[in-house]
């Protein structure tokens, strides 16, 4: 489809959607849709999308995903999506809409879970949506704002330690007709509070769909969020996700973004360090095979002084898979004593796999320490021979080396059960690419 047809196509979806006027989003949506119409989807010549050709996505006439019939899905059928031995709430957002029926343990929590359909919270949510960078960042985020059918809001009050990790499953129901889903998540961690959050994307059926999600994350003074994001959508799905993180003074944000699913996937994180003493850790792991394209874009905006950011992304690509990493560190004029480290390393398991890497430092303060490094390589033959010469079989030896490489990006996942679960994903990936 050309740009005009695309916009027309989505106009029809827009016109056909359920009216949300009474929750105060209508004006915001109209504005966002006008932005989308003006921006369209990114074009190949846009610098930010140079390595990521989204044209296969634009050729598919997606329809707005319909409501999921909760009674048609047994809660048990979602068991494999939950991390074993994690006792916190299990929240299901099905086709973009909070499903209380499929969720578990929503009661007696030290924080509030709500959606745009909860009258009491609708105003607050509308305010977050309105002020989100998503409104006009690019065509995708504008489209999410105009077409999202719900927004999930996790609101952690001040001085609260949420002990058990919170899991959110963004489930795509999958159907014959390719559907578009617009998940929206808003998280606020109040002053001095802490939480661990697992945000995962998956489908019960292998099918073609398009997830275009936005997460707005606000971490207030001296609060901390551990965030694991797991993109495990269907192999023929398209996934575009934007996480907008805003950090206040002395807050800590620790993210591990794992991408393994989808035919074309892009995850963009921007973290704005807006108060002194804030710390950000962005880790990421992308595991690609077949003809997957896995793209990670990060932007760390050091606005305030005495902040630290550490970033480590690692990618393992087999077959004809492609990886893209673009990491920008922006140090603004007042951000003295910034300490920023960025690393991106890729491991290619085949001659045809490829990684395009683009680190960018933009520094306007003078008293800072910023370093970045990027490497792309293949498995070390010497190391492989060394392991084999000790009796370790070829595939096991390969697995050991790949695991050691990938693990580096998972080291900061503190929760044992989460780490074990992610290790399982890694192992499955090795088995698949080794056969």
């Amino acid at each position: 489809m050309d740009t005009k047809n695309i916009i027309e196509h989505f106009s029809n979806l827009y016109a056909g959607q359920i009216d949300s006027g009474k929750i105060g989003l209508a004006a915001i949506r109209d504005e966002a849709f006008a932005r989308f119409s003006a921006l369209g989807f990114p074009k190949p010549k846009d610098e930010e999308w140079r390595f990521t050709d989204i044209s296969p996505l634009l050729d598919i006439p997606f329809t707005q995903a319909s409501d999921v019939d909760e009674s048609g899905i047994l809660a048990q059928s979602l068991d494999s999506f939950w991390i074993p031995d994690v006792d916190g709430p299990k929240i299901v957002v099905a086709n973009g809409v909070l499903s209380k029926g499929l969720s578990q343990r929503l009661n007696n929590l030290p924080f509030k879970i709500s959606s745009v359909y909860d009258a009491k919270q609708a105003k607050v949510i509308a305010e977050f949506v309105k002020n989100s960078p998503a409104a006009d960042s690019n065509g995708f985020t504008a489209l999410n704002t105009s077409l999202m059918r719900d927004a999930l809001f996790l609101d952690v009050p001040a001085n609260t330690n949420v002990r058990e990790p919170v899991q959110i499953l963004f489930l795509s129901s999958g159907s014959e007709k390719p559907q578009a889903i617009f998940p929206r998540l808003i998280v606020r961690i109040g002053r001095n509070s802490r939480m661990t959050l697992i945000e995962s994307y998956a489908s019960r059926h292998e099918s073609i769909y398009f997830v275009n999600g936005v997460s707005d994350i606000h971490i207030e003074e001296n609060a901390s969020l551990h965030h694991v994001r797991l993109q495990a959508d269907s192999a023929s799905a398209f996934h575009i996700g934007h996480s907008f993180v805003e950090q206040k003074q002395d807050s800590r944000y620790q993210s591990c973004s794992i991408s393994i699913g989808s035919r074309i996937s892009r995850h963009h994180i921007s973290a704005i360090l807006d108060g002194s003493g804030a710390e950000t850790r962005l880790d990421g792991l992308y595991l690609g095979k077949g003809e997957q394209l896995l793209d990670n874009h990060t932007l760390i905006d050091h606005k305030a002084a005495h902040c630290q950011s550490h970033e480590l992304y690692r990618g393992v690509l087999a077959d004809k898979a492609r990886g893209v990493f673009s990491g920008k560190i922006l140090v603004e004029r007042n951000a003295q004593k910034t300490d920023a480290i960025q690393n991106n390393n890729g491991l290619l398991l085949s001659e045809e796999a490829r990684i395009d890497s683009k680190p960018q430092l933009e520094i306007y303060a003078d008293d800072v320490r910023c370093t970045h490094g990027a490497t792309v390589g293949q498995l070390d033959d010497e190391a492989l021979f060394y392991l084999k010469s000790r009796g370790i079989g070829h595939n096991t030896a390969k697995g050991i080396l790949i695991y050691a490489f990938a693990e580096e990006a998972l080291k900061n996942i503190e929760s044992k059960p989460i780490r074990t679960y992610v290790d399982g994903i890694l192992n499955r990936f090795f088995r698949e690419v080794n056969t």
Partner: protein
Amino acid sequence: MLKIQNLHANIEGKEILKGIDLQVNPGEVHAIMGPNGSGKSTLANVLAGREEYQVTQGTILLDDQNLLELSPEERARKGIFLAFQYPVEIPGVSNAYFLRTALNEIRKANGLEEMDAADFLMMIRRKMKKIELDNDLLHRPVNEGFSGGEKKKNEIFQMAVLEPRLAILDETDSGLDIDALRVVANGVNSLRNEKNAFIVVTHYQRLLDYIVPDFVHVLYKGQIVKSGTKELALELEEKGYDWLKNGNGR
């Protein structure tokens, strides 16, 4: 145990080994000496099964089995062990995990049960003491950041754990201080028995004072130009290699 006949091997199209004959029987220690670049490490690597080397002629038999048909890991499981001249660093893989995986793969291949973590730990503690290897090296990534001597000791430690039938030590003595040399030699000597054998590649007579060889061979330009008993090493120490280069070897 090991029978090498007329072995020729290339690397990147260049012939390095030009007809090697060598027989090693159980219980024996063979020392291989020779100038830099003569092909000692090449021979060691060919025995271990390094894929980069092409064997163009000749045979290697291990107990009547064609060794050249076996992959490096199969050779290791049959009891071949190479202590590398330059041990490889493997970031992210702990020494202990690596060794236990290796030991259990070898045990499995030989019809033995896998060793559990507790038994394994007890066994390696004992062996580490013998090699005087620092306990903390066990939990560090394989060879990463190890000093030159620590890497060499780590090779001997692995050998002590895996208990190979035929160990090839490629200049394990280079870079060791006097005490470490004695420790390494003791490690080798305590493993020696009538069933296993060693090929010790070295430049120095000093090591052979501790590990006394049954035979000494001189490798020169890809061929064994002279073989003898331990006295040959003394003679080499005294005269250098020049007298052999002039054709006196044959």
